[in-house]
C-alpha cells in the first residue's frame, strides 16, 4: 500500500510538472508567434475512400505552431490534437525506422517524421498520400500490393542445408566482410514505400514489382548464405519484371535510408545478362586473402606501418 501511495504521489508530481511545462511552452509559443511568424500553413489532403467511395478529395488548411526542430509529423499531430481529430495519419516510431509515416510532402515522397519544416523553406506545407498506392483515408494508403510484391521475391535466406530437423547440431554460416559489403546497404530498407511511390514504371505497370522488391531480390541474391539463386532470378525475369525499369533513378533520390535501389536493379540485370565484373573482382580479392602468402604480405605491411 505504501508503495502504491508513493507511486500515486509520483504520478501527481509528474502531472504537475507536465502542466507547468505545457504552460511554459504555451507562453513561449504565444510570445514567439506574436513577435515573429512562427506558425505555418499546413494543407492536408482529405478523403474517406473506405467509408464513402464517392467522397471528393479536397485539401483542409490548418495553422500550426512551428519551432526550429518541428517535423512535419509533429505539425500533423498538433493539427490532429488541437484542431481536427479526424485527420487520418499512420505513424509509429517517430525516428525513421518503422517507415509508417511516408507521404508526399510538397510534391516529394518523404517520411513525415524525418522531414523538418525548417528544411522545407516554405510557409505552406502540403501533405498528400503517397502516389501509386490506393487511398484508405486522408494520408493513409493501402500497402497490400506493395507487400505482395515484396513477398513475391522471397525476402528470406533459403539454404538447403539449414533447418534439418534430424540434425541437432547448430549449423554456422560464415560470411566474410567482403561478402557482407555486397548487400549491406540494401538491408537498411525499412519498407516505407517511398521508392515505390516515386517510380514512374509502377505508375503505369501495376505488375512491376517496384524498386523496393527488386532491391530486396538483389539483397538476398547477393547473400553468400543463400543457395536458391536461380529461382530468385526466375521470379523477376518476366515480361513485367526487372527489365521494365526505365532507370529514372527517382527511387534512389527519395530513399530516406540512403539505399540505392536503382543500383541493386542494375546489378541484378548484369547478373541476368551474365556480366558481373565488379563482383568478380571482389571474388578475386577474396581468393587472394585466403592465400597464405598474401596474408604474410599483409602482415608485413602492417608491421612496417606500426614501425
Amino acid at each position, binding site marked *: 500500500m505504501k508503495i502504491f501511495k508513493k507511486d500515486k504521489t509520483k504520478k501527481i508530481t509528474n502531472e504537475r510538472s507536465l502542466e507547468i511545462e505545457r504552460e511554459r511552452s504555451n507562453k513561449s509559443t504565444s510570445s514567439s508567434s506574436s513577435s515573429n511568424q512562427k506558425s505555418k500553413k499546413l494543407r492536408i489532403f482529405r478523403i474517406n475512400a473506405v467509408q464513402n467511395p464517392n467522397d471528393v478529395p479536397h485539401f483542409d488548411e490548418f495553422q500550426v505552431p512551428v519551432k526550429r526542430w518541428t517535423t512535419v509529423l509533429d505539425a500533423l499531430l498538433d493539427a490532429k490534437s488541437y484542431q481536427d481529430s479526424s485527420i487520418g495519419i499512420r505513424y509509429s516510431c517517430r525516428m525513421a525506422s518503422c517507415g509508417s509515416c511516408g507521404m508526399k510532402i510538397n510534391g516529394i515522397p518523404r517520411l513525415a517524421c524525418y522531414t523538418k519544416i525548417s528544411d522545407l523553406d516554405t510557409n505552406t506545407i502540403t501533405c498528400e498520400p503517397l502516389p501509386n498506392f490506393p487511398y484508405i483515408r486522408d494520408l493513409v494508403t493501402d500497402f497490400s500490393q506493395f507487400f505482395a510484391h515484396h513477398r513475391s521475391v522471397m525476402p528470406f535466406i533459403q539454404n538447403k542445408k539449414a533447418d534439418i530437423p534430424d540434425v541437432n547440431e547448430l549449423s554456422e554460416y560464415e560470411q566474410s566482410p567482403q561478402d557482407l559489403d555486397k548487400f549491406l546497404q540494401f538491408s537498411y530498407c525499412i519498407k516505407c514505400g517511398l521508392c515505390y511511390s516515386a517510380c514512374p*514504371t509502377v505508375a*503505369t*505497370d*501495376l*505488375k512491376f514489382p517496384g524498386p523496393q522488391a527488386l532491391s530486396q531480390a538483389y539483397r538476398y541474391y547477393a547473400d553468400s548464405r543463400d543457395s536458391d539463386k536461380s529461382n530468385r*532470378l526466375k521470379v523477376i*525475369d*518476366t*515480361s*513485367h*519484371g*526487372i*527489365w*521494365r525499369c526505365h532507370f529514372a533513378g527517382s527511387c534512389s533520390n527519395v530513399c530516406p535510408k540512403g539505399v540505392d535501389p536503382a543500383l541493386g536493379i542494375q546489378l541484378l540485370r548484369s547478373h*541476368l*545478362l551474365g556480366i558481373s565484373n565488379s563482383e568478380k573482382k571482389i571474388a578475386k580479392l577474396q581468393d587472394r586473402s585466403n592465400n597464405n602468402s598474401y596474408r604474410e604480405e599483409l602482415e608485413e605491411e602492417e608491421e612496417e606501418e606500426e614501425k
Partner: protein
Amino acid sequence: MTSDSIKNNRNKNKNMTKWFSDISFLRESQIMKIHYITGVGALFVVAIHIMMRLIMPFNMSLEFENVILNYKNIFYALLLESILVLIAIHGFNGLRVILLELRQTQIWERGVNILVIVAMIGIIAYGTRTIIIANGFSLG
C-alpha cells in the same frame, strides 16, 4: 461427337492456348540480350551504310541507277538485309515493351506478342523481297 473427340479437341485447344501464352518462349533476359545486341549491331551497320553514302556527292548517291547498283553488289545487299533484320527485331521489341506497359491483362500481352512477331516477320519478308528483286533475281 464422342467424349474422346471432345477431350481431344479440348487438349488441342489447351495446347493452342498454352502456345499462345508461351509465345514469348524466350525468357525476358534472353529477349533483352537480343534487344541490346541488335541495337549495337544496328548502330554499326547503319554507320557503314551512311559512310557509303558519303563516298560520292550525296545527291548522286540517291540517283536511281546508283541505288540499283548498290543492290546489285552482293556485299551491299547483305549489309542492307542485316540492317533490315537488326532494326526490325530491335524496333519491334521496343514497341512490344512500350505496349506491354499500357495494360497488364494476359489477353493484351498475348495479343501484343503475336502482333509484334507477325509484323516483324512481315516487314522482314517484304524488305527481303525488295532486296532480292532489286538484286536482279526474279521470284518467279
